[in-house]
């Protein structure tokens, strides 16, 4: 990514960053749910796949931007992290933990309600891969997304 693009990402206002984080977090579950719902329709398989990929692409773009916004500070690759960066990183990790806890409790509760309502959950590649993909993509990105969420707008240069 060019320096100009990186600089633009660095100066994204918080309102825009928060919108990107919401799209990034909600996009994948929406795409998977849409795929599951469309599978039972008479729509052409390739059209369903195209729609799914489009939704994924719309999710990946904000996910990448949000991730790049904070990556250098989360993984410590930025040459000099000062005390504010370190404090912010700590807050981002704490918020990530809270968000992850809420997601896991919600997922467990939904599964429990689904199973106690007389349904069966067959664990195979088709049901497991959406969860596996979520873990692979979102778990490493979550602290960066949270940092992008919490940091206030950068002061104007002076």
């Amino acid at each position, binding site marked *: 990514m060019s320096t100009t693009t990186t600089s633009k990402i660095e100066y994204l206002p918080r309102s825009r960053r928060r919108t990107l984080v919401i799209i990034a977090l909600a996009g994948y579950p929406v795409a998977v749910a849409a795929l599951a719902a469309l599978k039972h329709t008479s729509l052409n398989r390739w059209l369903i796949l195209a729609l799914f990929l489009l939704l994924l692409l719309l999710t990946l773009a904000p996910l990448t931007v949000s991730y790049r916004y904070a990556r250098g500070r989360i993984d410590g690759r930025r040459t000099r992290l*000062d005390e504010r960066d370190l404090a912010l990183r700590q807050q981002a990790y704490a918020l990530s933990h809270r968000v992850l806890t809420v997601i896991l409790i919600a997922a467990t509760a939904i599964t429990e309600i689904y199973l106690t309502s007389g349904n069966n959950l067959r664990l195979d590649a088709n049901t497991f891969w959406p969860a596996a993909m979520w873990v692979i993509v979102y778990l490493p990105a979550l602290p960066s997304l949270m940092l992008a969420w919490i940091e206030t707008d950068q002061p*104007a240069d002076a």
Partner: protein
Amino acid sequence: MPDTQRRVHNRLAVLRTERGLSRKQLADKLGINYQTIGYIERGDYNPSLELALTIAELFRLPIEAIFSLKPMTPLSEEIFREPPAEPR
């Protein structure tokens, strides 16, 4: 800055401008990122005690002349404030 944290008011922007320093120059002297100076000036980040003391040392001023828990009055007002009338 977490919402529960009390705001620390400061005169950093005035002092920095008075000494003709840019945020980048001041940040380099303090060994921090220049954005952090902006966040401190805006009151969005409360510096650690170590950083506050380093700033005070750099400006050769007592720490309470730069940072305060109460909103700060303009420096000129403090310098030219009339002393309280002496009791008779």
